[in-house]
Each structure stands twice: as structure tokens, then as C-alpha cells.
């Protein structure tokens, strides 16, 4: 029985199928390849992939499990494919958005023009939990606040891409992008050639180059770059360890570092060694007990002042969370227009702010239709899925909203697009999102042509977070548009494949294809 036998697209936008049995052009080759594969064969490949994940230690720690059990992040073998034209649009849109958000951060931590001009209400910024007035007037190297950005995108029922939220603090998940790719290239090697899938493995090279660029004056020659982790008990510790290894830099904890006379050092068996750049995966609040929470044991006393003085660089910078606040999110289209004089290319999801009296009323009256989110929570916590929630849950949220309107926003429930996922012995549609990663360097912004596609593995679920039963898929960005003929002439795919392969060679041999595509807008 075919993998796609009985596959229904229902009323959702399906990434793979225009209609049951009719794949979209960019999925044609994959479809042809998988159509005749037996479920048993596919299951075997899935098991091999799972085993590879466990062997490579791609796991996340289960909190509160005394035995130290670690589970692999569920992984669905069917890739999500994004055609070149769509990606080109996303690239322009995401770069535009990050450029504007960085200008916004620089502005609110300096002259606050956008607030003085009344474009964004001042109280939303200065009242945001992640606004860091202590860091106002400081100048991060190159004026860059967000070096690594991982915004979450979704597609609605028409297939329109929209940004769901921005992650500008310490976005995680990129290790899955890199690992998923390694596994899929082993599982479907020939498809990569045939489809001209763009490579992602230059991510760490680009990231390291960008981090080195941030080194303080006089330290550029051979900067000491480290990755600062909260430690082994952090749920993302695997990623920290993985990235440190891939970047070839030390993985340090706060207790490995100290500041002396405004310089940061790490404690080594050969004495103190100066640290120039810190890729930090520790939140602002815990970064420096002198400046932020004095009870933090994860940070380094004096680090913020050393950073302010330009003696060490941090990525990301301090206080970036104010720009990924869910309330500020509603203003991002206006922020883009204010700084760039352009309309936002990628739309937001319509958002109601409980702090706005009209919206407030609408939200409370329509809780059964809306998704309500607390402004400063992430990972799917502090969220109400109105249509699916119980009456009691809705009432609880109503009370919370009334108590602190500033902290809540509401959005209509978007019917996230679906993609086929392998379930037991066949494929079923599951809702997905998309988290691409951008690297903001001094010269340009790089969008890695690939992304983390998270998939809600529970039937009918919209929640893709790994903490709530989500899994991931590899995301293939195609170098070329599929030939228009392939839409109608599936039988041509063999010849098409040859042609595509010829074109794709320069792509796969060039280690850093995106370096040339950069150019901040």
C-alpha cells in the first residue's frame, strides 16, 4: 500500500499536495520517489534515523527525571520542501524585518526617537519585562544587537507566510537543523542531487566568522571566542555542547569566567586566559549579578561593564528581548515603516492588544475564538487556545487579562499549514511552522537556506513546541524552480533530474554560497 494512500488535505493548506494525489510541482520528485515505497521500507528508514539520533546524542533532558533519561527530539523523516521563489521572498522579508528590529533596539537604547514620535507607545517599551534600562546608552560593536535571530513563521489557509513571533534573545534549535540534514542526506542521498537542495552546513562557519568580527580592538588577530551555557541541567545543553564542538570553541559556565579590571578571563590550567567574544546562551537576568539579578550564580560579576567598555563582546547583546515581546510584535509592521520607509514584506498575524481599550473588549467577548498569549512567556506556556479550551480555562484567562492587560495579546486561530508526517504505516497531515535562522554580521545579514520545521505530531494539534509534543522535519530549500513541465509530466522526472544536477553542482561545491548574497538592506 502506498505511503500516501488515502491521504486527505482537508480544509488546510497542504505543503505537499494541491489536492489528494496531486503533489505540488516542487514536491513532484519526492512524491515519485516515495509513491512506490512500502510503509515497511519507510518505517525501517525511520528506525535507522532514530537510532542515529540516539547514537549521536541528539537528545533533550527530561526535567525531573532522576535517572538522567534523555529522549531524542522526535523527528519526522519526510522533508518539508520550499521552492526557490518562495525562499527568495522570505529572505527579503526576514532581512527587512531583522534590519528594522535592530534599528529599533538601537533607537530605544539611545535617543528613543520612535517613542518620542509616538509610533510605539513608550509605556509598552519601558514597561516591558525584558527592557533593560541599565544598558541604555551603551554601544554594542557595530551597533548590532541581534546577531542570531530565529523568527517563527507560519502559513495560513491560503498558504500566505506570516511571522508568528520573533526570537531575538537566545533562539535555539539550529543544532536540529544541522543534525536533521546529516541524517536525511544519508537516508535519501539521490534526492538531494536530483532536487538541488541548498546546503546548510556553512552555518557554523558563518557564525564563527561573525563572532570573531566582534572582537575588541587589538584582539582581532586570534580572538578567544567562548560559548557561555547555564550548565548541564539546562534543557538546551545538548545544543550548547554541540555548537561549541562544531565552532571549535570552549564551552564555559559562569564560574569558569571572571572579570578583573574590566577584562574577562577564563580560568584554565595554564592560568587566566583573556576572553574576547562570548556567544551567550544565558538570559540577561542571570548574566551579571552586579548589574542584574544579584542572586544569579550562572553569570559573571562585572561582565556588563566590561562589555559596555568594549573589552569583550556579547552575542546576542543585552536587552534584545524587548523587541520580541508579544505586545511589541503588534507594532513591528509600523517599526519597519518607521525606520526603512517600506511596507513589511512578510505580514504579521492579526493581533489584538489587551492594553488597547477597544481590543480589550473584543478579546474578552471572543475568548472562544482567539488564541491568547502572555507577553513574556515562551515555549507554548502561558497560552490559551480559545476554541479548544474549557469554559473554566477561558474564565481563568479572562481574570488574568483583567488583572494585567499589558501582559496579554490575542490572535485569531490560524489554521496552520500541514505537511504529511509518517504515522504508524501511512502518512497523515500534521500542522507545521518554520523557524529560519539569520546571522547579522558587520557586513551583511545571512539567512541560512534551511530551517527548523517543527511539526505538531499529535493529530489535530497546533502546538509545535518540543516541550508539548512537537517534533521536527528537515527543511529543504531548492536552488532552482521546478521545471513547469514537471507539473504535468511526472514521467519526465528522470531527465529533469539530470538537468537539475548539472546546474546544482556549483551550489554544492561552494562552501559559503550565501556570503555573496548578503548585503544589509
Amino acid at each position, binding site marked *: 500500500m502506498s505511503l500516501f494512500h488515502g491521504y486527505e488535505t482537508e480544509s488546510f493548506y497542504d505543503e505537499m499536495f494541491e489536492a489528494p494525489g496531486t503533489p505540488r510541482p516542487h514536491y513532484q520528485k519526492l512524491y515519485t520517489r516515495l509513491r512506490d515505497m512500502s510503509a515497511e521500507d519507510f518505517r525501517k528508514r525511520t528506525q535507522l534515523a532514530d537510532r542515529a539520533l540516539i547514537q549521536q546524542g541528539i537528545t533533550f533532558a527530561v526535567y525531573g527525571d532522576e535517572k538522567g533519561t534523555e529522549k531524542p527530539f522526535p523527528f519526522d523523516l519526510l522533508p518539508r520542501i520550499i521552492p526557490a521563489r518562495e525562499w527568495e521572498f522570505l529572505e527579503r522579508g526576514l532581512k527587512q524585518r531583522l534590519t528594522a528590529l535592530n534599528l529599533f533596539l538601537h533607537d530605544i537604547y539611545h535617543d528613543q526617537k520612535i517613542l518620542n514620535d509616538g509610533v510605539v507607545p513608550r509605556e509598552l517599551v519601558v514597561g516591558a519585562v525584558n527592557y533593560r534600562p541599565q544598558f541604555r546608552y551603551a554601544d554594542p560593536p557595530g551597533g548590532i544587537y541581534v546577531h542570531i535571530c530565529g523568527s517563527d513563521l507560519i502559513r495560513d489557509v491560503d498558504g500566505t507566510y506570516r511571522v508568528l513571533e520573533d526570537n531575538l534573545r537566545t533562539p535555539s534549535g539550529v543544532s536540529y537543523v544541522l543534525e536533521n540534514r546529516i541524517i536525511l542526506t544519508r537516508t535519501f542521498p539521490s534526492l538531494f542531487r536530483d532536487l538541488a537542495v541548498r546546503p546548510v552546513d556553512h552555518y557554523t562557519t558563518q557564525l564563527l566568522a561573525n563572532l570573531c568580527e566582534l572582537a575588541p580592538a587589538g584582539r582581532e588577530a586570534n580572538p578567544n571566542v567562548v560559548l557561555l551555557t547555564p550548565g548541564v541541567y539546562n534543557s538546551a545543553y545538548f545544543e550548547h555542547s554541540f555548537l561549541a564542538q562544531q565552532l571549535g570553541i570552549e564551552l564555559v559556565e559562569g564560574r569558569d569566567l*571572571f572579570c578583573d579590571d574590566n577584562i574577562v578571563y577564563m580560568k584554565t590550567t595554564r592560568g587566566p586566559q583573556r576572553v574576547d567574544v562570548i556567544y551567550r546562551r544565558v538570559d540577561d537576568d542571570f548574566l551579571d549579578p552586579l548589574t542584574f539579578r544579584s542572586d544569579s550564580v550562572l553569570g559573571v560579576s562585572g561582565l556588563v561593564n566590561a562589555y559596555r567598555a568594549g573589552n569583550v563582546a556579547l552575542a546576542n547583546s543585552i536587552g534584545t528581548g524587548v523587541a520580541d515581546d508579544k505586545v511589541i510584535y503588534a507594532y513591528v509592521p509600523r517599526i519597519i515603516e518607521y525606520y526603512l520607509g517600506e511596507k513589511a514584506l512578510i505580514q504579521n498575524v492579526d493581533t489584538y492588544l489587551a492594553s488597547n481599550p477597544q481590543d480589550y473588549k473584543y478579546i474578552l467577548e471572543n475568548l472562544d475564538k482567539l488564541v491568547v498569549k502572555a507577553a513574556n512567556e515562551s515555549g507554548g506556556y502561558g497560552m490559551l487556545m480559545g476554541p479548544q479550551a474549557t469554559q473554566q480555562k477561558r474564565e481563568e484567562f479572562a481574570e488574568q487579562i483583567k488583572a494585567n492587560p499589558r501582559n496579554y495579546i490575542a490572535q485569531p486561530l490560524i489554521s496552520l499549514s500541514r505537511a504529511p508526517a509518517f504515522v504508524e504505516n501511512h502518512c497523515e497531515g500534521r500542522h507545521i511552522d518554520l523557524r529560519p535562522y539569520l546571522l547579522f554580521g558587520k557586513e551583511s545579514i545571512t539567512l541560512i537556506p534551511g530551517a527548523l520545521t517543527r511539526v505538531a505530531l499529535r493529530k489535530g494539534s497546533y502546538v509545535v513546541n518540543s516541550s508539548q509534543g512537537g517534533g521536527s522535519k528537515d527543511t529543504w530549500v531548492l536552488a532552482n524552480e521546478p521545471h513547469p513541465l514537471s507539473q504535468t509530466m511526472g514521467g519526465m522526472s528522470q531527465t529533469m533530474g539530470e538537468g537539475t544536477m548539472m546546474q546544482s553542482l556549483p551550489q554544492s561545491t561552494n562552501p559559503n554560497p550565501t556570503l555573496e548574497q548578503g548585503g544589509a538592506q
Partner: protein
Amino acid sequence: MRLRVKHTTQYTYSQPIKDAHTEVRLFPHSDSVQTCLDYRLATQPTANLFHYDLPSGRVHHFNIRPPHTSQVILSEAVVLTHLQNPFVRLPLVDNDLSFYTQPEVQQRYIEYLAETKRVPLSAQVAPFAEAVHSQSESGNTACFLTQLTRHLHASFDYVPGATHVHTHLEEFLELRRGVCQDFAHLFLAICRREGIPARYVSGYIYTGNKPSTEEYIYHEEGRNLVGDDATHAWAECLLPNGVWAGFDPTNNLVVNDHYIKVHDGRDYSDVTPVRGVYSGGEASVLDVRVQVTCEDRQAS
């Protein structure tokens, strides 16, 4: 006036501590009402000093890495103060309180109108404003603020040691006594509830050159001025004419040339004169000495 401030802060620890990092906010402002002529900061054990500047003032910082059992911070400043008659800056326009209802004003100064941990805008403070409003119908801001200063001074007792740096405002309201920090926070809470942007100021007050004998220096109204044995605190409010004027409810005074402003912020947490962290976990004993002298009078 030419005022000299000598401010000594000493921390003593029962066991050696190490890797101590300290931030000091003791450098006096230079602005239209005061000029800092000279400033020296020194520490014992000695440390290399660093600083950065913010609109709210200069912050010095340093670290002492080797183990030590005491840390002394000596801060000395010479400041010229110009505000002989503070009342000239207070506009006497009736009903100018309406200035504060403008949305642009509320937006612009939201940081000084918002609640903070130390300045809760609870309903408990409402009666103080009502009491002052009932005394005067003019709707004049300066009048409201001076009367509020007097009202708080009359309603609460200044008792050194009655409260500490972490005392909550509600406790002060209950005790009816406290220190300058409590007076200033209450003043801020009342003003902010009224929509008047108000900020916390740390600084010093000159209460007369102390003679060698134990002689009280009296203000012309016959009151003993307080606040010179440590850093002082008061409030600054934005007036409809754009001036930030200081009000000292602890001493029932409009801030004049006896005052030296050091830092301002949303509340005490923003201006903490000395803030530090260290490893060792030992509790410290703090000893603070402040001496403010006037060099005009000595010279004459």
C-alpha cells in the same frame, strides 16, 4: 555656596571575601543649579577605577580580587551650588495641574509616572493628596507640591534606624516613622498617582559646619535639619514650565543651594550609592560617614 563633601563607606567582613565587584554612584551632577569643581574617589585596598556616564549621573566601578576583610571607599567632592532662591523657579499659575493630563506628557515621562517595587501606586496613599487638595483650590502645581512636602513632614516622624533599605512603603505608612528614603518614596507615589512625573534623587544636604562642641545648628524656623550623617534623598518633580524642582519632605524644604544632587532615578534601586557583589557569603558590617562643610564661610 562652595560645599565640600567627604563620604566614607566601610564594609567589614568577619571572614575574608574575594572577587568583590562594586559600583559607586557618588559623583555629583553638574547642571544649571550646581557645578562639581573637583572629585576624588579612592578605595582601600586600592583598585583601578573605571566609570561610565549616564544622563542620571556618572557610575564608577572597580573590583578587588584577592581576599580581604574590609573595603573602604573614600569619596570627596567640591561642589558650587547656585540655587539661593529656589522659589523663583516655581511657576505660580492657577490650575496648571491640567498640564499633566495631556497625553503627550503622560507618554513622554511614563518612567516617572509608573509604579515600581519601591513606589507602589496603591490606594493607601490617596488620602494624602486629598488632604492637600482640600487645603487649596488654586490648582497650582507648585503650591500642591510645597504643601504636600509640609503635609508629609507633619504626618511622619524622621527616626534614624526606624526602617532599613528594604522597608516596604506600606510598612512606613503603618509605622508613621522612617528615614529620608521612605519620605521620598511616599512623595513619589503620591505625585505619580496625581499624574505628576516625579523622580528619586540621592545626594547630600549641608546643615551647617559642625563646630567641635555638640551644638545644634538650627534652621531659621527653629528646626534641626537632618540628613547629613549619611547620603540624603528627596524627590524631584517636573513642573509645567519644564523645570525639575526638588522637594524634601524629610526637612520640609524646597531644595536650594544647601543641597547637592548626585543621581536621579525611578526609585532608590536606580541610585543605590554603593552596590556590590562578592564571593565568600559572609555578611558585612557597614559603616558610613558623611561630612558636608561650607568653604565660603570658612573663608570669610
